[in-house]
Structure formats: structure tokens, C-alpha cells
């Protein structure tokens, strides 16, 4: 088989395997079926919360009819947190002072994004396949249908966003997912202390030799509980009561301190 023929074959496989895999997952299994489970489905933020590790376990189910794969399995787990619009600004010299001059708006971007894979994603699949299946941070941040020339100006901002969010733990890309047995894998992703509350979607994709095999999606929630939730509820539902209470507490604490520390 020539290199050209094989690359064409892979392209064709890419286009047809996704619907095929979905049909098969629903019907009697001939291809692989992916079953995943999270270590937790609800993360409660309490007064001592300072970040947590969440693990995803996956089993690749096969039966006798499933054809054997040439290449070993690769897994890419993508976690997408609640979405918001993010502004990236750049300071530039104007005269002799530095001011924010240029900015780019990233609309509806997950605040938390984690990609945990068995190998670096650019070794697992081609760029085309990564963009098609949304694998890796680059694919996640690249808007679909934008031509490369126009997009070049945005690349700096995308890179800065990736770097800054990487530093504060909101963007994670690492290849620490492991197969604990030939068909069972585990991927752990860290939620930082500043992670937002809301719904997190976890998507696991199995590939083999750069070809799509199966995909499974699950979700978990990050919620505030008890005192934390009560504070937020009061602040939003009864803002006047909340404000007056805060003001009253200030007066009380200020007065208490005077009494406690009174020496003369």
C-alpha cells in the first residue's frame, strides 16, 4: 500500500466513521462501544474548597464480531466548563506610556477547559482530524470556518489566552491518561480553586491509528452548598437586606473592637 493510498483511506474513514459509530453504538455492537463513568457527578464547594481532582474511567467494549485494530487505542478526554465571553487585551506603547490598545473577544468560550490524553494530541491525530473532532486546546480555540490569513492576527491573542489560563490552571492540556488494562482507561483532570460553578461536560474520544473509533459524553456539576450558597442567594435575591446586614455587621464589629480593646 502506498503512502498516498493510505492517507486517502484515512480521510475517507474520518468522514464516515462518526455516523457509523453512532449507529453501531445504538444497534447491536459490531464496532467498539465506549462506556465512561466519573469519580463524582457533583462537586460541592464548601468553605474549605481549594480545588479537586476528578477522574474519568472508561471501558472500550468489544464483542467477537468486532474487527481487530492494527494500532493501539488512544484516548482524548475533553472537559468543558460553563461558558462566558472572555476579553484578551494587549498593552502597547503610546507615546511614553503603556495602555491597552488592542483586544479580541472570545465569545462563548468554556471558562475551564481540560484535554487529557494518552499521548500528546498532535501525535494522536492529524490537524485536520483534530479540528474535525474537536481534539486538543488548539482545536477548541480555533473558530470554525475562519481562513488562515485573516486568523493570523488573532493567533497572538489565542496564544496569550492559552498561556495565561494555563498559568492559572483553567486551561489544562496533558498526556497523563493511562490504560489500566488493554480496554480500560483512566484520565484525571484537576479543577483549580477558581473554577466556576455550573455544568461541566466531559467527552471521551477513542482513536486508533489516527482514526475515530468511539465517543462517549457525560457531565458533572460544581455547586455551592450550605453557607456559601446561602450567602449567594441572599446577595442576589435580597440585595437590600444583604447590604444593610453587611453595614450593620461593620458597625457591630467596629464597636466590639473598641469595647474589647478599651484600656482607658
Amino acid at each position, binding site marked *: 500500500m502506498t503512502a498516498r493510498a493510505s492517507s486517502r483511506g484515512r480521510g475517507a474513514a474520518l468522514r464516515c466513521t462518526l455516523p457509523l459509530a453512532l449507529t453501531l453504538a445504538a444497534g447491536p455492537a459490531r464496532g467498539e462501544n465506549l462506556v465512561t463513568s466519573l469519580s463524582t457527578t457533583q462537586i460541592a464547594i*464548601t*468553605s*474549605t*474548597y*481549594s480545588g479537586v481532582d476528578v477522574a474519568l474511567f472508561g471501558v472500550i467494549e468489544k464483542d467477537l464480531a468486532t474487527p481487530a485494530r492494527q494500532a493501539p487505542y488512544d484516548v482524548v478526554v475533553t472537559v468543558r466548563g*460553563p*461558558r*462566558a*465571553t*472572555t*476579553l*484578551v*487585551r494587549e*498593552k*502597547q*506603547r503610546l507615546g*511614553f*506610556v*503603556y*495602555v*491597552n490598545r488592542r483586544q479580541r*473577544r472570545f465569545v462563548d468560550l468554556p*471558562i475551564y477547559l481540560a484535554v487529557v490524553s494518552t499521548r500528546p494530541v498532535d501525535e494522536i491525530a492529524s490537524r485536520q482530524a483534530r479540528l474535525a473532532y474537536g481534539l486538543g486546546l488548539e482545536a477548541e480555540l480555533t473558530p470554525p470556518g475562519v481562513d488562515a490569513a485573516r486568523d493570523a492576527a488573532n493567533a497572538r*491573542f489565542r496564544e*496569550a*489566552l492559552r*498561556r*495565561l*489560563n494555563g498559568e*492559572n490552571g483553567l486551561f489544562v492540556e496533558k498526556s497523563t491518561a493511562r490504560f489500566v488494562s488493554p480496554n480500560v482507561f483512566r484520565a484525571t483532570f484537576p479543577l483549580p*480553586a*477558581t473554577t*466556576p*460553578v455550573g455544568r461541566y461536560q466531559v467527552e471521551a474520544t477513542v482513536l486508533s491509528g489516527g482514526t475515530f473509533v468511539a465517543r462517549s459524553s457525560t457531565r458533572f456539576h460544581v455547586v455551592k452548598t450550605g*453557607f*456559601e*450558597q446561602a*450567602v*449567594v442567594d441572599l*446577595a*442576589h435575591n435580597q*440585595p*437590600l437586606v*444583604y*447590604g*444593610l*446586614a*453587611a*453595614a450593620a*455587621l*461593620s*458597625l457591630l*464589629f*467596629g*464597636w*466590639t*473592637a*473598641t469595647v474589647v*480593646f478599651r484600656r*482607658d
Partner: protein
Amino acid sequence: MEIYLPIADMPVNVFLLLAMGAAVGFISAMFGISGGFLMTPLLIFLGIPAAIAVASQTSQIAASSMTGVLGYARRGALDLKLGAVLTLGGAVGTVAGVAFFNAMRRLGQLELVIVVSYVVLFGFIGTLMLVESLRALWSARRGVARRRRRGGEHPWYVGLPLRMRFYRSKLYASVIPFLAVAFLIGFAGAVLGVGGGFIMVPTLLYLFRIPATVVVGTSLFQILCTMLGATVLHAVTNQLVDVVLALILVVGGVFGAQFGARAGQRLGGETFRLLLALLVLAVGVRFALELVVQPHEPFSIMRVGPER
């Protein structure tokens, strides 16, 4: 020990916050200033969003000033009447300042306006105060007695209409200049997110020649009233007051304020002015550096719009 802040959505070290509260509370009570211009940068440095830092520290400032006010009132170093006049002018100025602030934000580049205002205001006032202090110290060293204010000798603005008698301040003066100054301070305070004590104190000292001990207590009283109102306004309009953050800062702040108030009473008038001048000037220089030094990281991230 880490504790999770429910509104700021992040954990912080309790002891670090307590120490910061105590340090700022000490300086605040010593000079009769709110200390907002010191606390805001510290909180932002910890990673707390600027808007939440500004909103939450209003209630912290209120608690610190409450302690300070009670302390000065007990020593008779508080002119309640003057404080009430200043609060009235300040309240009107604050409302106007908030409106101006929102208008500027819609036009963009608000951050630049704030930094430049900090540099100009702090640099200008700090320099004025420093020059005045150094001249006073210089003449004191050469043994030249400086002229004290004599009875019946006033600048022109004291003689405007609507004169009132302020016993504690040893003054019979028009309320118009006080209202005007308080308005301007309330305005600048709302735009810059500071209490404005650092303008109020030197103004009362230099323009109205009110005794230093009365100035601090009265300024704190005005700050207390303004910040109580600001706490409620922030809570109602933007829901950004983090009561847990505020309470930790309060506990540290009232502790520091106790010692600050005593230290302030012990300071000599000239030393007091010199230290305050240096403090204000240092903040001005800090913001100037931020403006002209090439930033280490030119990019910054800001989350806008609702999360979903």
C-alpha cells in the same frame, strides 16, 4: 488556613487577609484615611477581581472607621457638626461620581483614566504636602518660629455666606467651601474607588487650619457615613460585596485600627504631615511606574458577560 470566598468564587489564606487588614487598619486610623488606595491593590494582587475588591472593602473601611471614630470621640477629637456638613457634600459628590464613572466606562479606556487620575492626583497632592512639610521642618530646625493662626484672621472663602460655628474645630466659617470640597472628594472617591481621606485630611489641615487631632476624627466620621452608604449601594446595584472577605478584613482591620489611633495621637503634627505626604506620594509614584515601565506581561484577560 484557606477559606473559600462565596462571592469572589475563590479560596484565600485567612492569616494573610488578617495581616493585610491589620496593616491597612493601622495606617487608616493613624492618618484618618480610609486606606482604600492601599487595600485595593493588595486584594487585586491576591487575585480577587477588582470590582469585588472595591465593593467588599467598603464595609471593611466602615468597620475600621467606626472603631476610629469611637476612639477619637472619646478623646473629644471629633467635630460632629463639621462631619455632618462634610457627609452631606460627600453624598451628593458620590452620586455624581458614580454616574460619571458609568458614563466613562461606556466610552472605554476607563482603566487608563483611573491610572492617570491616580498619578496626577496623588503625585500633585503628595508633592504639595511634602514640600510644605519639609519647609516646616527646615524652618523649625533653623529656629524660625512659624506664624500661628491668630483670631479673626481667615482666608476669603471662610467668610462666604451661610456661616456656622464649629466649636471643636475652633472655627466660625461658611459651609459653602466645606460642601464644595466634600463634593469634589466624594466625586473623585467614587470614580477612583477610594474613600478620599487622603484629600480631606490635608484640605482641612492646610486650607482651613483645623487642629490635626480634630481633623482625623472628623475625616473618619465622614468616611464612616460614606462607606456605610457605599456598602448598601454596592450590594443593591451589583451584588459584589463578599461578606466573608469583608469580615476577615474587618477583624484584622479593627485590630490594627486600635493601635493606629493611639499612634496617631502620639505623632507630632509635623511628623504626621511628612509621613502622610510620603505615603500619598509613594502611591502616586507606584501608579506612574505602572504607566511608563514596559509591562512584564502585555496581555490581560477579562471575563465579560454572564456565565452559563
